């Protein structure tokens, strides 16, 4: 008889499903099956126990080969690198728990680091837009229970947040949405005919990069003003129709993703999407929700918010917190050669930053804390594998709607492996020793 662990939280995407069940071997050591998860979530749990997994820190040698070192040696190296640097970048913080983020924040403060999380290449545009115009939003359960107009703008949950539509946005039979997907009109705005778009009642296949124009046109249509015949490749008839659909709903919601945050216009695209939502609230009820990517990128912005007052792009090098995206943001710092050390935890800039930035990381003293071998670990001088948060150690994470959920420990990590929080604590202690000595 396998042992079943219930109410398991999936530590992959911002959907943060908390209804997984994991079957363990009798001794509780091996993960046999994962139920309720999507393919990605299941893989994360199953692959965590791969036989070829790294279990000890490795340091890169002159000749490019790797040599195993102890966690203490790795912590010492990391601490020295951070203390010696004038302007180190401590990046990532999205695939880890809030407690680890908290210890990281203390290290960043001690050494005077620039600190940034994956929002910087994900929903950073959104965070800036919210600072400009605010954000009328709601928890995902509000949407499940009430929303009858659902827009996916520049996002593709069928691939990026696979259980989003079934758990929250399209299929649930909620309190006031008893007919499930039949209670809802689904609108998708995307330049590709995505698998999400294929399910929609209406797909606006706009010209890539013209989101601002189309959102602006929808505002015009909501107010009943005149439009040109075609905007962003969409006919005015269709735009008026969509505006009517939204206005006539009882509760409209706009989910949006990288299609808008990554395209030219950036935060301005989000500004106007939020303004559409604001306008709709004069006619009906409306909310807007960013489809946050990593399972705890949201938490990282929260922890820094209450400790420093800003959700990303923190510059602590002057001893107090400064915030200035474009100046204190990772990619700008890297490309402008302002940094002299890079520390990465819970993210893979090697795979997800433009290559120009990755080249800079490769040239600098660098440490990568990650359970996996990644392009980042490959270009770093030290790679510290740690236990998987949400699989081998619990900890708090914030869902895309900011709802905090406690992830679970399902199995023990491999013998002798540290969690990232434990490793960070070693680094913090060492940093304090070094600074005390100085």
């Amino acid at each position: 008889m396998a042992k079943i662990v219930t109410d398991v939280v999936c530590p992959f995407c911002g959907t943060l499903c908390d209804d997984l069940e994991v079957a363990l071997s009798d001794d509780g050591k091996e993960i046999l099956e994962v139920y309720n998860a999507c393919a990605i979530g299941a893989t994360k749990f199953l692959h965590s126990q791969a036989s070829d997994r790294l279990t000890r820190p490795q340091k890169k040698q002159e000749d490019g080969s790797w040599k195993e070192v102890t966690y203490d040696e790795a912590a010492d190296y990391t601490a020295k690198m951070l203390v010696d640097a004038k302007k180190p970048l401590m990046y990532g913080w999205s695939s880890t728990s809030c407690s680890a983020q908290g210890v990281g924040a203390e290290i960043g403060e001690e050494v005077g680091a620039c600190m940034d999380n994956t929002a910087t290449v994900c929903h950073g545009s959104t965070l800036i837009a919210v600072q400009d115009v605010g954000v009328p939003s709601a928890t995902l359960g509000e949407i499940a229970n009430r929303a009858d107009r659902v827009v996916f703008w520049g996002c593709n949950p069928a691939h990026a947040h696979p259980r989003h539509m079934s758990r929250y946005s399209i299929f649930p039979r909620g309190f006031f949405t008893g007919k499930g997907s039949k209670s809802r009109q689904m609108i998708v705005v995307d330049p590709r005919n995505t698998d999400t778009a294929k399910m929609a009642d209406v797909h606006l296949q706009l010209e890539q990069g013209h989101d601002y124009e189309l959102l602006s046109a929808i505002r015009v249509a909501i107010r009943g003003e005149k439009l040109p015949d075609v905007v962003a490749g969409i006919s005015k008839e269709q735009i008026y129709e969509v505006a009517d659909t939204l206005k006539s709903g009882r509760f409209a919601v706009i989910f949006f993703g990288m299609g808008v945050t990554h395209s030219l216009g950036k935060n301005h695209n989000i500004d106007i999407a939020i303004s559409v939502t604001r306008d709709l609230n004069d006619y009906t009820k409306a909310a807007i929700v960013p489809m946050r990517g990593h399972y705890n990128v949201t938490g990282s912005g929260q922890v820094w918010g209450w400790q420093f007052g800003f959700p990303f792009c923190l510059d602590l090098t002057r001893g107090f917190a400064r915030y200035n995206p474009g100046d204190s943001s990772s990619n700008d710092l890297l490309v402008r050669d302002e940094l002299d050390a890079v520390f990465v935890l819970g993210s893979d800039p090697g795979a997800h930053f433009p290559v120009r930035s990755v080249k800079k990381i490769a040239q600098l003293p660098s440490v990568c804390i990650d359970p996996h071998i990644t392009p980042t670990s490959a270009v770093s001088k030290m790679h510290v594998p740690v236990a998987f948060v949400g699989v081998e150690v619990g900890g708090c994470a914030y869902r895309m709607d900011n709802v905090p959920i406690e992830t679970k420990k399902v199995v023990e990590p491999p013998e002798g492996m540290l969690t990232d929080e434990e490793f960070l604590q070693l680094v913090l202690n060492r940093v304090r020793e070094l600074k005390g000595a100085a």
Partner: protein
Amino acid sequence: MAAIQINLISGRTIQQGVAMESGKEKPAYRDACGILELDDAEFKRLGIFKNTNVRVSSEFGTVVVKAIGATQGPHPGLGWIPMGPWANALVDPNTYSTGMPTFKGTPVTVDVAENETVLDAIALITEECL
């Protein structure tokens, strides 16, 4: 040989997510992300069959990937490389003071590179950076 200009975008796919969690050093990750999805019309313009390796170049870099038929198309004028080091070899790193590189909407040139190989993620990043 023909070369075509298209507008490149990237993003997540399920296969990318699964492959990423199975190990980015593995061939499956390359197979999931070292690809370029094109409409049939673009294959005609290029004069090649699907599943042919191509070289994609932008103002910011060059990378070899395998051209495959669009799985979420048609998307006229657009090319799609899933999020990962292959796409990021090409994208516009300019943030225009927002902190956010311009990941979507990079003008690229595609030409045939039948005899070149698609590198795995670690080899690719090593070659580019080290």
